[in-house]
């Protein structure tokens, strides 16, 4: 069973952003399926590195869209993004120290935070986006 299942109701109306949100949550699924990275294995480390790189790319992209659109809540978003990046960094540190309990607790937190952020914050800036390519 998937740790997270994407639903259409999570879409916020931008093909690009929706695709990235979905991909990020799929990466979380991959990590969960790999045994939550509870062992100090290479697969878990590579997935965490990918997760970290992907989330940073995604946030920089969103911030770039907001900057171009002159979105007023950009600074708030940047703070929230930074906080989430620190959670992922903590997860990497826990993995390196082989702390399975921390990892198990962290995954639902990452999932729930990300989902809340999508539904509550990201939805607000979609009407401001000017360039919205289709798939």
């Amino acid at each position, binding site marked *: 069973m998937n740790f997270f299942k994407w639903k259409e109701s999570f879409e916020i109306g931008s093909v690009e952003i929706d*695709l990235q949100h979905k991909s990020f949550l799929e*990466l979380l699924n991959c990590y969960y399926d790999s045994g939550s990275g509870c062992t100090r294995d290479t697969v878990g480390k590579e997935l965490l590195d*990918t997760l970290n790189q992907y989330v940073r*790319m995604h946030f920089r*992209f969103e911030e*770039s869209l907001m900057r*171009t659109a002159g979105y007023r809540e950009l600074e708030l978003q940047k703070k929230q993004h930074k906080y989430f990046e620190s959670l992922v960094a903590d997860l990497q540190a826990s993995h390196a120290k082989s702390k399975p309990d921390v990892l198990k607790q962290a995954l639902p937190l990452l999932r729930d935070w990300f989902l809340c952020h999508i539904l509550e914050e990201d939805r607000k800036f979609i009407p401001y986006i000017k*360039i919205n*390519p289709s798939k």
Partner: protein
Amino acid sequence: MPHFINCSGAFSVDSKEIDDQHLQIVDILNLLYEAKQEQSLVTRRHVMDMLKRYTETHFSYEEGLIRAASYPGMGTRPLSRVDDRKDQEACAVCDRNPDLLTEEVFEFLKKWWIDHMRNAERM
């Protein structure tokens, strides 16, 4: 990490819409460069796809403007801008083989987009 291309305001044209699209594409190129430096295959593939979609949308928009301004009677006849598709060809080749996304390809893309933004002033 320093940006691969810095161009805020340097290549501004009279259209805010075009300026915004150019800045967006430059930001995506910077993200692609960052993904390449970090050797992140998954991220790189996603950014490549994104670059293709944004480039396609941007070209269609510019071509629509050119068509409307210069050739009001040309209807749906395709507009030939072969040079403007070169960067897409470069991306398509690299997409098939990520190892081909070398510094030289990035330099080509950088030069190509800077030339494109300069030329957009003459549109």
